[in-house]
Each structure stands twice: as structure tokens, then as C-alpha cells.
């Protein structure tokens, strides 16, 4: 029952944080921090002896009805896997990062909204029932819409609505897929239920008619690939990032994008063995195209924030590739591939939050994030520039930083199934490295743009924030075992399911 109590506590914190007036920042920070510590203790105690699969389910029957051979049961059930444990932890830490940045420091609504996004994420990763999965899936969107729309900058009305509609379309098809599965489950067993463990069950889905099966795959994939985002469905992302305040951007890339990764690897994977081969190749192709495409598009961005947005989408493309290639590979390689994809989902959040935060502190001083407007920043603000450089290096996957482990393992593991096509990934990585170094060279080194005037470097508090982010990023870069162990255990469990 600890998860339920945890979730209720988080809900209460979220509600209170709307009422805290000018202490909003401190209240939400401290309480989310306490929650994180509690969760950390919990996961150390529970996941120390983790062996794979789902653990600690609390299953509450909210409502059930049985009469003349229909029975309807609506459960609220919580559970954690190795993957979701790491995701919950990530969501909590990313929420803390977003709150730390918290630009509108005396607006309690802002912090309430950020905390609600965090709450939605944590709930989404914990819940094991599709009704509540969908509720949390959408609950994340609404406060995010407000964050982008209310506190955004350029063209915020249009972009926030576009963001919402784009992701809402995917969600609604997800809904139809859930219904399809639920209906056929009823036909088979006489019970209407939305339990993930019942519906996302290989034995059950094998018995589905082809139309229903592909319809449900279509809905799930649409929703998850929009969130991820993959190449043709990414249109909402760069604009949303561009407009959103920086704390919103952190949650957007750290939280919302990992929802897509969780959907693919955590929800859909147990039945992915039923995917037709063409679909698997299609997904891999989408992933490869995304890596290259996002690398090139971010190369042509003049705005650093958009550049990071595209590159974060490019990093998430590794998840798609991991998803596809692991279906083709076997044995330990599959486990390695899957764990790499999961690790990438988590590491990506740390890396992008470091990038966005350091960019925010640069923006606070220079009031511009155009590559051409900056230049030679290192002369004026060496510390902030170093952090930004570190973030860029982390995104391009430098060893010892967070981004490396995931990209490396996915690339290595996909060689078994892709063969020489892996070169495309390498090519994407090279392009990424090229443009990051180019962007760093343009904005941080070279001649100083004197129009910016005299700039102050980071003060202590700002330094501490960035330092914390960098440390966490390095920590999971050089000591990945902490997370990688449970991910591998869960991945081998998943790999065994197919």
C-alpha cells in the first residue's frame, strides 16, 4: 500500500502548492524533495532484491458489478517494474530540477502546475490499469498546456493549442485501442476490465482477430510515437519547446518524451512479439530516419533552444530503434538492447534538463539564445559556458556522461539485427557531434559579441543548481549499474515474455 500512500501524499502536495502564495517555490521544492527521498529509500529497500517482473501491486476494486453474465470491474491498481521504478525516480528528480529553475518565482499557480505535471508523470508510471493510465496520460497534458500557454513567450496561444491537439489526437486513438482490447477480453472471459496485466497479455492478444489486433497496435503506436516523438509526428515538439518557459521545457523533454518511451518499452513490449515483420522494419526505419533527420534539422537551427529540442527528439529516436531491433535480435543482445533503450529514456531527461537550465542562465544574462547573437561567451561567463558545454557533450554521448550508456548499448546491440545499417546511427551521432561542437564554437568561443555588454557569471545558488544537475548526470554516467541492473533484470524478463 506504500505506493498508494505515496501517490495520495503527492496529490495533497500538488493541491496545497496551488495555495501557497509567495512561498510556492520553497514549499513545492521541499515537499517534492522529501517525497523523492522517501521514494529513494523505498526503492532501495524493495529493489535491492529485484528479480524482474512486476512487484508490489496494490489492487483496489473501485467498482464492480455482476448480473446476467456481464461483469464489470474497475480497479485502481499500482505496481512497479524495474523500468518504472527508475522512471518514477527520474520524474521526481526532473520535477525538482524544473522547480529549481522556476522562473516565475512568486506565482504559486506556476509551481502548482509544475508539481501537477510531476504528479501526473509519477501516477502514470505507477498505475497498472488502463483507465487510470489514460487519465494520467491526459492529466499531464493539461497543466503542461497551461504552462506553455500562460507562461510561454512567442506566439503562445497558437502553439499551446497545437501542442494539446496534436498529443490529444494520439491519446484518443490510444483510448480506442484500449476499448478494443477490453471488448475482446470480455468476449473471451465475460469480464469487462481495464487491467494492463490482463489486456497486454500475449496469450490473450494472440487470440484476437487480425483487424482488432492491428487496430489496437495502430492506436498505441500513434499515441506513443507522437509523444516520443518520431520523425513524421514531431511537429508539435520544437515549437512547444521554443515557447515554453525553461522549467516547462525541462518537464516537456524530461517528462513528456519519456512517456512515449515508457509506452513503447513498458506497455507495448509484452505483446510486441505479435507485430508483423513489416511493422517492425517500419519502426526501425522511422527510428533511423529520426536520428538522421533530427541531427540535420538541429544543425540548421539558429536558435539554441530549438536546437536542443531537436537533438532531444533525436536522442529519443534511440528508443524506437531499441524497440524495433530488440524484436529482431535474440538472447542477451535483446536484453542489452532493451535495457539500453530504457536507460536512454532516463538518461535523456537528465541531459536535457542540464542543457535547458544552463541555457536559461545564459539567456537570463544575454537575453538572446540565437547562435548568431551570442559569441565568445566564455570570456565573460566561463562557468555558465562550461556547464552548457558539458550539457552539449552529454547530449552527443560523451563517455562518463549520462548520454553515453544508452546510445552505446543500443548501437552495439542493434548491430546483430541491422548489420551495416548501424552506420546510419553512427552517422547521425557524428552529425550531432558536429553541430554541437559547431554551435559551441559559435556561441561560447570565438569573438565576443560586444553588443551584449558586461556580463556577470553565475552566482552561488545558480552554480549549485547546475552543479547538482551535472553531478547527477555524471553519476549515472560513470555508475550506471545502479539503474542498469534493475533495467537489465526487467528487460530480460520482458525479453523472455516474447
Amino acid at each position: 500500500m506504500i505506493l498508494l500512500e505515496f501517490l495520495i501524499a503527492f496529490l495533497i502536495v500538488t493541491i496545497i502548492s496551488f495555495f501557497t502564495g509567495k512561498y510556492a517555490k520553497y514549499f513545492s521544492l521541499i515537499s517534492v524533495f522529501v517525497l523523492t527521498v522517501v521514494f529513494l529509500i523505498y526503492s532501495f529497500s524493495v529493489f535491492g532484491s529485484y528479480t524482474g517482473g512486476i512487484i508490489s501491486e496494490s489492487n483496489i476494486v473501485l467498482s464492480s458489478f455482476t448480473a446476467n453474465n456481464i461483469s464489470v470491474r474497475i480497479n485502481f491498481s499500482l505496481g512497479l517494474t524495474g523500468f518504472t521504478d527508475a522512471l518514477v525516480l527520474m520524474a521526481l528528480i526532473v520535477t525538482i530540477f524544473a522547480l529549481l529553475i522556476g522562473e516565475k518565482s512568486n506565482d504559486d499557480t506556476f509551481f502548482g502546475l509544475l508539481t501537477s505535471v510531476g504528479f501526473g508523470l509519477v501516477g502514470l508510471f505507477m498505475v497498472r490499469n488502463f483507465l487510470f493510465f489514460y487519465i494520467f496520460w491526459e492529466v499531464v497534458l493539461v497543466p503542461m498546456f497551461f504552462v506553455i500557454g500562460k507562461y510561454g513567450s512567442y506566439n503562445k496561444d497558437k502553439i499551446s493549442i497545437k501542442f494539446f491537439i496534436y498529443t490529444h489526437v494520439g491519446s484518443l486513438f490510444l483510448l480506442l485501442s484500449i476499448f478494443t482490447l477490453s471488448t475482446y477480453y470480455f468476449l473471451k472471459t465475460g469480464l469487462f476490465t481495464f487491467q494492463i496485466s490482463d489486456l497486454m497479455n500475449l496469450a490473450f492478444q494472440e487470440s484476437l482477430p487480425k483487424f482488432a489486433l492491428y487496430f489496437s497496435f495502430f492506436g498505441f503506436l500513434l499515441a506513443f510515437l507522437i509523444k516520443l516523438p518520431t520523425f513524421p509526428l514531431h511537429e508539435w515538439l520544437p515549437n512547444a519547446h521554443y515557447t515554453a518557459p525553461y522549467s516547462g521545457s525541462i518537464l516537456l523533454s524530461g517528462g513528456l518524451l519519456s512517456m512515449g518511451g515508457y509506452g513503447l518499452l513498458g506497455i507495448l513490449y509484452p505483446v510486441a512479439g505479435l507485430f508483423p515483420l513489416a511493422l517492425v522494419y517500419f519502426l526501425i526505419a522511422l527510428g533511423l530516419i529520426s536520428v538522421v533527420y533530427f541531427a540535420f534539422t538541429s544543425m540548421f537551427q539558429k536558435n539554441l533552444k530549438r536546437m536542443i529540442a531537436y537533438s532531444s527528439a533525436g536522442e529519443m529516436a534511440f528508443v524506437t530503434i531499441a524497440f524495433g531491433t530488440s524484436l529482431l535480435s535474440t538472447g542477451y543482445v535483446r536484453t542489452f538492447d532493451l535495457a539500453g533503450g530504457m536507460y536512454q529514456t532516463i538518461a535523456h531527461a537528465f541531459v536535457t534538463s542540464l542543457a535547458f537550465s544552463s541555457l536559461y542562465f545564459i539567456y537570463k544574462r544575454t537575453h538572446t539564445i540565437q547562435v548568431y547573437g551570442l559569441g565568445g561567451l566564455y570570456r565573460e561567463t566561463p562557468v555558465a559556458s562550461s556547464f552548457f558545454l558539458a550539457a552539449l557533450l552529454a547530449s552527443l554521448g560523451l563517455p562518463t556522461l549520462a548520454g553515453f550508456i544508452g546510445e552505446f548499448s543500443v548501437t552495439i546491440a542493434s548491430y546483430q539485427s541491422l548489420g551495416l545499417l548501424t552506420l546510419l546511427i553512427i552517422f547521425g551521432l557524428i552529425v550531432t557531434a558536429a553541430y554541437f561542437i559547431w554551435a559551441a564554437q559559435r556561441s561560447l568561443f570565438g569573438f565576443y559579441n560586444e553588443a551584449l555588454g558586461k556580463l556577470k557569471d553565475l552566482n552561488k545558488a545558480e552554480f549549485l543548481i547546475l552543479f547538482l544537475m551535472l553531478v547527477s548526470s555524471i553519476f549515472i554516467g560513470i555508475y550506471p549499474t545502479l539503474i542498469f541492473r534493475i533495467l537489465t533484470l526487467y528487460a530480460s524478463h520482458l525479453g523472455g515474455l516474447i
Partner: protein
Amino acid sequence: MNFEYFYSLILLGLAGFIALAMGIKKDNKKIEALFTFIILIIAFILILFKSSGYNIYFLDFTDFNTYWALIFIVSAMVIILPSMHDIKDKHDVFYALLLFTVLSMVIAAYTFNLIVLFVSFEGVSIITYILSAYNRTKRNLEGSLKYFVISTIGTSFNILGISLFYFSTRTFNLLAVTKLYSSHGLLLALVFIIIGFGFKIAIFPMHQWAIDTYDGSPNSVSGFLSTGSKLVAYMILLKFLYLGFVPDYNYVFYFFAILSILTMTYGNIAALSQDNVKRILAYSSISQAGYMILVFAMIGYSYYNVALVSRTTFLRFSIAIAMFYSLTYIFMKAGPFIAMSLVRKDKIMIDDFTGLSRKSKWTAFSLAVMLLSLAGIPITGGFLAKYFLFFTLIIGNLWWLAVIAILNSVISVFYYFRIILYSFWKPGDNDFDLSPEIKYSVIIMALITIALGFAFTLYTYLIGIAII
């Protein structure tokens, strides 16, 4: 004769006259409103705590009917507080008329006899003509006049339809329909009845009056028109189509599938280009009617027996969702109409809402909750209603209708979110009328809307009582 079943009806009728008498000399609206509210609560309790399963003459006291009676009482209850503020004229007649309307509605809820259904439906109509013109401003009068003319045309269509229905089945009692005497007569009856009651539900070709009347009436009356009086027509059609059209009669499906698609799409598309908020809400109530009459299409569809589940299961689910949708619809639709009283104008444009969140955060939040509920976003009642509606469509193997409904629901997000966007962060400032009656009723409605978002038990209960 078991009189305890009639207590609520007698109470409502007597209270109507008392309310009329109370305001003869002085207009003390507080006492009258309180009196009406208490009477409605007592009637609600009397109806709620009464074992069902009794029938006498034309009245059937079953669970199904009781649920509708409760819905109607609630729909009148929610507008009492805001009407204290909206209604500028003497209040005596208003509350008396409201009580009489509720009486008519409750009788309509309890019966399966077409004559009684028709008469009580007319009772609701005629009283609401007066309510919608209550403030006697030019806009009120124009709205009421259009309503009157169109509704009377609808009445005559109803009479034709019901008489042709009798011609084809030789009974007025819907429960006794077993044999078909004239199939063409029944088809004509179906058409006429769809037109007659469709005017009241405001389904697509019969909707234009609704836009003007909802726009012109006092805000709380608009709320009542678009919930209570619409739901009466909806319930009558539900009973009619479920029981009246003997099995293997499947025009119902064609008619309603086409009508609901047209209604949803038209309502949504027309609302996109509107700047007048009350008209946006009116169009949205048309598109909501489109979702609601999907249930009729499902009822017609169930006769084909091609649903994935058995016919009775499918019917159970579709009728349960009609009942659940109606309850949430009251709160999420009447709420925004009531919130229109925040603006001190008759003609409420969308930029009159700028700055609402700065003036009163929680009112803006509550309005947003109800709009999100209309758009079908989770943790609101509207979400749960739409969730189970789409679920029922999928159970029935109606994927194409579900996809159309879902795409419509996506379109609707645009205009609901536009209002949110204006009330939260568009630059600009307006003077809002934050009198407690309006403010608190909006907040309470929003809270109930959220609470309904977790009313799973209610839904499963409704599946149990759905078969009449």
C-alpha cells in the same frame, strides 16, 4: 393505492402554489429561492429513498424512471442560486413556474404512456417560453418568440407522430407495444417524432432556434433550457425508441447515425468561427446533443444483432451511458452558462473574459474545469461519460462511428480552449460581476463535475438498472 409514491408529486405541485402566493405582496427573493431549494431537496430525498417496483394507472415507479426523476430535479436545483442574481424582475412567478416545470418533468420521468409523456413535455415547453422571456429585455423577447414559434411547430409534429404511432401499433402504452399494424405508418411516425422532439434536443436541421434562444435568454434560464428541458425530450425519445419501435425495425439506426454525425460536426464547425461565448456554448450544446443521440443509433443498431456482445448487454451499456451522460451534462453545460453572468453585458463576446483569472483565480479555474469536461479531458465527469460512450461504440462493433466521434471531440478542443485561453492569459482587463451567488454556484458545479469524474460506481450501478 399506495400514496407514499405520490408524496413528491403532491409536494411539488402544492409548493408551486405556495411559492406563487409567497411573492404576491413583496419580492423577497431570498426566502422564495430558499423555499424552492428546500422543496426540491425534500422531493429529491422522497424520491431517492423509496423502494421501486410499483405501478398504478400510467405511472411506473421503477429504478430507471426514478433515476430520470432525480436528474430532472437536480437540473432545476442547480439554477436556483444563480437565478437569484440573473432574474431582475419579480421572482414569485419564476420559482413557482420552476416548481411546476419540475412537476411536469417528474411525471414525464415516471410514465411510459405517450399521452402523459406528451402532455408533461408540453408543460415543460410552455413554462420555459415564459422563463426565457422573464426579464422582458429585447433579447429575451426575441429568443422567447423564436422558441415559442419553433416549439409549437414541433408540438404539431409530435401530435402527428404520436397519432401515426397509434395508427401503426394501436396502443399509447410503450410497454405494451408488441405488434406492428402498419410499417409505413411507423416510418412516418418515426420521422415526425424525430422532428418534433428533435426541435427540443436541437439536433442538426432543427437547431437554429436554439442558438438564438440560448443566446437571448437570461443566463440561468439558458442553462436550464440546454439541460433540463433538453433532457426531457431526450428521455422521452430514449423511452420511445427503445420500447416503441418493435424489434427488426432498423430505420432508427440509419436516421440517428446520420443525424448524430451531422449534428456533432455541424455544432463543432460552427462553433469554431464564433466570437460570442453564449453562442459558442449553444453550438457546443448542439454537438453534445450529437454525442448523446449516438445512443439512439446504438439502440437501433442493437436490432441487427451484430454487436460484439449480446444484444441485451449492448443495450444495457448504451442506455447506461445515456443516463450517465445526462447527469454529467447537467453540470458541465449549465455551469458555463451560469458563469456567463460574470460579465456585465447582455451580449457576451469572447474578449469580455480576458483577465478573469487575475480577478478571481478559482472562478476562472472552475469555468476551465467545466469546459475541459465538455471537451472530454480526464478527471472530469465529461471524460468519464465520453470514455464509456466510446467504449460502448467499440463494444457494438461501430468503429467508424467511434472514430468520427473522436475526431469531432478533437475539433471541439479548439473552441473550448479558446475560452480558457482568453480567461487565463490574453492581455486585457474587464470588470467582472463576482457576486457570491454566481461565483459559488460556478465553483460548486465545477467541484461536482470533478467528483463525477470518479463516479465509476454510479456507472456500474446504471448498467444494472438500465434495462427498463
